[in-house]
């Protein structure tokens, strides 16, 4: 048994190092001074916060739109959340609680839409959005992002709606409630927990999204934060400490959400992988 404990500790230690090494690299460089970045050492030299300062004050030329881009990212994330909420509540409720002939086809369709990787129709989407005249606008990104985010939310709402005992609706139905009243008076108040879960997930998906904004946005003042970071990979600028600081500041909301709503998110995604 003692030997086993040692082996377990060694495995755990290796996994911890494996997990944290790239994260450590991020912090090490972000906390270095401009000169410290180009020093051969595993530990930060000349620790300074000048890189964070450069991002937050916009004094470095590649970060001058930091606050504007934060605003853009927030607009697009909240826009997606607000658009997906009614779509997914309605559709999820229909699939979970209403009996109609096309139901099973619609459920399969939703699952296909959920699993379909957006990268394989990225260019057709770009062409069609040009045709709609929706490139380089918040609305375009929000609409496409919502189309890809909705299926998973629908499946979560569907799952949730099925778990509500049908006796509740039956009782109201005896009292003469219409389908619309069942939805607004009974389901909507009960749906708050699932609405919170899907909203958090949609916010994060949109906040992290890179490909769709990359295709649809062209002007630097319309860019979201990930697009600005994507550009760091392409420049010849050498201020990697500032890039890392930018990346870490951008990562704060997802990290907070993931840790605060750990159970929700892991549970939600697991249900996605195991059940749908």
């Amino acid at each position, binding site marked *: 048994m003692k030997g086993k404990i040692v082996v*377990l500790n060694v495995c755990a230690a290796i996994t911890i190092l494996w997990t944290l090494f790239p994260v450590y690299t991020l912090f090490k460089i972000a906390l270095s001074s401009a000169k410290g970045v180009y020093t051969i050492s595993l530990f930060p030299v000349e620790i300074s916060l000048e890189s964070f300062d450069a991002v937050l004050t916009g004094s470095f030329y590649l970060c001058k739109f930091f606050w504007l881009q934060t605003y853009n990212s927030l607009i697009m994330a909240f826009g997606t959340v607000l658009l997906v909420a009614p779509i997914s509540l309605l*559709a999820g409720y229909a699939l979970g609680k209403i009996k109609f002939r*096309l139901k099973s086809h619609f459920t399969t369709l939703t699952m296909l839409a959920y*699993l379909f990787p957006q990268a394989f129709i990225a260019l057709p989407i770009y062409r069609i959005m040009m045709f709609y005249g929706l490139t380089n606008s918040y609305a375009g990104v929000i609409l496409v992002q919502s*189309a890809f985010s909705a299926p998973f939310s629908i499946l979560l709402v569907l799952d949730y709606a099925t778990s509500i005992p049908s006796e509740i609706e039956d009782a109201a139905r005896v009292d003469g409630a219409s389908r619309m009243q069942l939805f607004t008076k009974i389901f909507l108040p009960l749906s708050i927990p699932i609405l919170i879960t899907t909203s958090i997930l949609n916010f994060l998906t949109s906040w992290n999204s890179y490909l769709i904004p990359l295709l649809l946005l062209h002007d630097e003042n319309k860019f979201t934060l990930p697009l600005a*970071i994507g550009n760091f990979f392409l420049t010849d600028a050498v201020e990697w400490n500032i890039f890392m600081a930018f990346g870490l500041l951008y990562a704060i909301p997802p990290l907070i959400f993931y*840790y605060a709503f750990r159970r929700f998110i892991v549970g939600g995604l697991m249900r996605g992988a195991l059940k749908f």
Partner: protein
Amino acid sequence: MALKEEEWYGIAFFLPFLLSFFLFIIYPLLYGLMTLTAKEVWVEIFKDAYLLRALLNTLFYVGVAVNVKMILAFFLSGLLMYKDDVRLIKFLEWILIIPWALPDVTALLGIKWMFNTYWGTFNILLNYLSLPSIDFFNNYFTAMFTIIYTHIWKFLPLWTLILYSVRLTIPREIYEAAEVDGASDYNRLRFITLPLLRNTYVFSTVLSTIWVMGDFTTPWLLTGGAPGGSTHVAATIGYFYAFLLHEMPQGLAANMTLLPLILFLLIIAIKLRG
């Protein structure tokens, strides 16, 4: 409530999603498929080496990354089962989701620098061990390695937690009974854990395969095809044709080459789920 009325409500409630699905997924898809009928585009993109190379790279990337990740996730989820006995594992469980919680682009910044030839932390580590630095992004195999590594690092936590949640549903009594009957550790793994995890494992592998094939961000930002356009994958090659070579028709065709395979995998996934 009249049956007919229910039919209408069902469709009406589903309609907003259906509308967005058709406008932003199906219509582009059909438009893309229509452009694929131009034969000369196909002749052209299969004449140069980029597309074929990208397709082979995809198989290589997906084949290695998904399977290594799932095998590691299988063992790591087993390790997590001991979290109440070993304090270090408790800590591991707490930090495990960091790679997955980090946004793609932030994680990629760290990894890109980690593999930097001169100042990257990985090469400095090698130097400490008296090993020579590796010029990761200037060699096809090491560049592919960085992409595969990134995927495994980032998504190991998610699949570990999924397999872990299945392991938690296996009643302890089964293991205890097997132990009383004198089953060895190996036999308990072979005859209890493996059969009970099999379905989830297979389904997860199919899902993961679909999603990794569609991973644009990692290959695009990490290597961007370097060295010399040799590390493009199916998800990035269309973008490369369209915006770097400015050949939109070729880009559209290249972008959609893997659709039949994706469709096949989607059907398998839906069938497996039952």
